[in-house]
């Protein structure tokens, strides 16, 4: 089928086989009505998650392991079932990128990663109960094109982390 993609100010139609599509049974958070996506490689570590149902809905994603090697997320049994993951299988995790008005990656949501099971052609945006990450960490793009988190070198990401975790720590303390 033909998928319409907007990139770099251009509209492009790309042929994608039905069995290459990813099914998001719950959509993305806030976009629950869009359940079918095509995932394109934009050159490591960036990807484009493009809705097949609505050409206006597309997300630039980044491989978080390239930003923070210790990155990970726990899945509940129900989330593993939705992703059709086999016992011991681990999903690929990708994170939503926000762009500057100039079209440069400017922030990344490490709090709510997108989990993908390529074998089962399934995807799900997770909001893990616990996380040391926030919904928007600043990104810096080097002249050579490499992307890095700003200020996470020492294990601290500044205000974004504090915002994401303040009340959550209270919640955890109470859930004993």
């Amino acid at each position, binding site marked *: 089928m033909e998928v319409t993609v907007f990139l770099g100010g251009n509209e492009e139609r790309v042929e994608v086989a039905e069995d290459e599509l990813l099914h998001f049974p719950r959509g993305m958070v806030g976009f629950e009505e869009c359940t079918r996506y095509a995932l*394109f490689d934009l050159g490591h570590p960036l990807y484009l998650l493009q809705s097949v149902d609505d050409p206006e809905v597309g997300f630039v994603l980044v491989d978080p392991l390239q930003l923070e090697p210790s990155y990970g997320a726990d899945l509940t*049994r129900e989330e593993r079932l939705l992703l059709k993951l086999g016992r011991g299988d681990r999903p690929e995790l990708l994170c939503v990128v926000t762009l500057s008005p100039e079209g440069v990656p400017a922030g990344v949501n490490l709090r709510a990663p997108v989990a993908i099971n390529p074998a089962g052609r399934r995807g799900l945006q997770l909001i893990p109960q616990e996380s040391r990450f926030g919904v928007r960490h600043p990104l810096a793009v080097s002249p050579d094109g490499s992307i890095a988190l700003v200020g996470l070198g020492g294990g601290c990401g500044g205000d974004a982390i504090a915002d994401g975790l303040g009340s959550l720590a209270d919640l955890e303390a*109470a859930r004993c």
Partner: protein
Amino acid sequence: MLILTRRSGEAIDIGGEIQVRVLEVSGDHVRLGIEAPRHVRVLRGELREEVERENRLAAGFQGRLSIRPAGGLRVHGS
């Protein structure tokens, strides 16, 4: 929406699996104790809204991306 009045120490049972107990009321703060099975995600309501806001900021602006993949678009994993 179901609306219930509860006093400190009283609880609400949801579906026999989830219990929400009012632990303490002080001014405009309410401390709640939540017992739920492990598979149920318990999240602050604002967190989902924050994630939705970030998604809305990201979706639809992908057209601005100044990076073009060499050799055209390729489906991941194919």
